[in-house]
């Protein structure tokens, strides 16, 4: 009984995705889902050009890896005192940034655009990286601090006894022990940045800077004609990296919730 109900629900979830897969193999694809008369890889080969695929994906990579690196660095630095020292500052700060995660980012985009105009940062990849880092930082700090709390202080103290400074102990003892956790945080931030559409759509204007999420509109012709087959093929190639990364984390971490950003105290 449970099996049957589940399979029906599962089918409903797969159906919209079926169009992507079948459409990408059908050179004459439209809105509808149909098994291609002559399945071919024409759409994929049409998409495999520097302009259509490689440059947007490279921009996506720069954006996501940059955001991951900046976020992780700032999160590790911030998490250390929050995890290791007791202070009246900790709780208000942690709840304050948690409150920050609650603000709807889409509501902030209009003011952020205004801010970027004033600071003349529009169409700047580094500035967009910094903004994306700021939006993912609260969650990253929470996750990093939780992972750091799990590294016992005793291990670190042993290094101090041997004459290592706090920074040296952090680098050579604590961070390696947190390795898998830091990987989860990085991938989590990377996936979010890779999939984000609205932020680069508002902040990055020139084609040379646009990531795949925004350049996908190049499949919409000027007169309303849409190359659906190519759109589907491009979507699949663009989605594969995050599907693979998610697979790694879900398998390795055992708890896919680590990725969901669900915070519980």
């Amino acid at each position, binding site marked *: 009984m449970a099996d049957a109900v589940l399979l029906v629900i599962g089918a409903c*979830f797969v159906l919209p995705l079926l*169009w992507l897969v079948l459409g990408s193999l059908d050179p004459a694809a439209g809105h509808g889902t149909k098994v291609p008369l002559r399945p071919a890889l024409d759409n994929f080969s049409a998409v495999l050009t520097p302009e259509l695929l490689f440059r947007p994906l490279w921009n996506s990579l720069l954006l996501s890896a940059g955001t991951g690196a900046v976020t992780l660095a700032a999160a590790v630095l911030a998490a250390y005192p929050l995890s290791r020292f007791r202070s009246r500052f900790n709780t208000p700060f942690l709840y304050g940034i948690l409150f920050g995660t609650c*603000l709807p980012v889409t509501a902030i985009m*209009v003011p952020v655009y205004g801010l970027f105009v004033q600071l003349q940062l529009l169409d700047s990849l580094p500035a967009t990286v910094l903004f994306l880092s700021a939006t993912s930082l609260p969650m990253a700090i929470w996750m990093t601090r939780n992972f750091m709390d799990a590294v016992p202080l005793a291990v670190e103290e042993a290094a101090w006894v041997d004459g290592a400074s706090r920074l040296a102990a952090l680098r050579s003892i604590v961070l390696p022990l947190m390795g898998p956790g830091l990987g989860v945080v990085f991938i989590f931030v990377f996936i979010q940045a890779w999939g984000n559409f609205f932020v680069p759509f508002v902040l990055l204007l020139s084609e040379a800077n646009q990531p*795949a999420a925004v350049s996908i509109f190049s499949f919409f012709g000027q007169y309303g004609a849409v190359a659906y087959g190519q759109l589907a093929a491009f979507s699949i190639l663009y989605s594969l990296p995050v599907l693979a990364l998610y697979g790694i984390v879900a398998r390795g971490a055992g708890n896919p919730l680590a990725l969901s950003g669900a915070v*519980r105290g």
Partner: protein
Amino acid sequence: MARHHQRRQLARYLPVLPAILLLAVFLAGPVLWAFQASLTNAGLTGRHARNPEWVGLENYQRLLQDPVFPLSLALTVLFVGGSAVLGQNVLGLALAVLLRRARPAVSAVVGTAVVAAWVLPEIVAAFAAYAFFSRDGTLNQLLGGMGLAEVDWLYAVPMLAVIMANVWRGTAFSMLVYRAALGGVPAELTEAAHMDGAGAWQRLVFITLPVIRGSIATNLMLVTLQTLAVFTLIWVMTAGGPANGSSTLPVMAYQEAFKFGDIGYGTAVASVLILIGAVFGAAYLRLLREQKP
């Protein structure tokens, strides 16, 4: 001595500085800027782009008279209530319960399908949903195949279409939250109730749900906040149309600011949205503190 201690304390917290700077400039800054800009007539281009003038509460007065605003507010409530509170939350719980009863192979396949819709980049999910609900899309093909009447979903019932699309897109989150929560329900509890002759439904309603009520409250709060911010899905599927028929607050703020070039008015709409998010955010923090023993 006290001063020395204070200085040491300050030095210890120095590493937090980069994070604070980033958050202050790119998160707190825009929020404050929004409240300020909503009191001006800042424009996207032209004279008012360079030298916005102070107009006081004019934008908010206009908001109260604009017939689109109450509509947009109502649509936002409908969207959040329908797709998050009802759709994702209930379906997510149902899936989590069913996944524990089904055969492992079935639950692995179905779980993956549900999560796939959620992991995909938002623009890809939005295009897939657009194609699915469009006039000659998959849904109408299915209905036609079953001999039922076809519906032009995106034009005739745009809200229903975007609500269903958002349930499809976001249910995985609730499912994962409830899967973790159900895993923490002690087996003795439900077994004892089983011995006492309680049926499956009774066990769910009287034992399981009360035990996981903390997770239910947390999940409701988080999906509400996430859904409040949904823009891309609606914008790709209907662009807020037809005739503002699916223009929730994020879509309205975007259109006023970027389509009609009125940054001042757009930020006024955005400010309202930020305030709504802040209220739910404060409620969420309270909830977390209460749950902590």
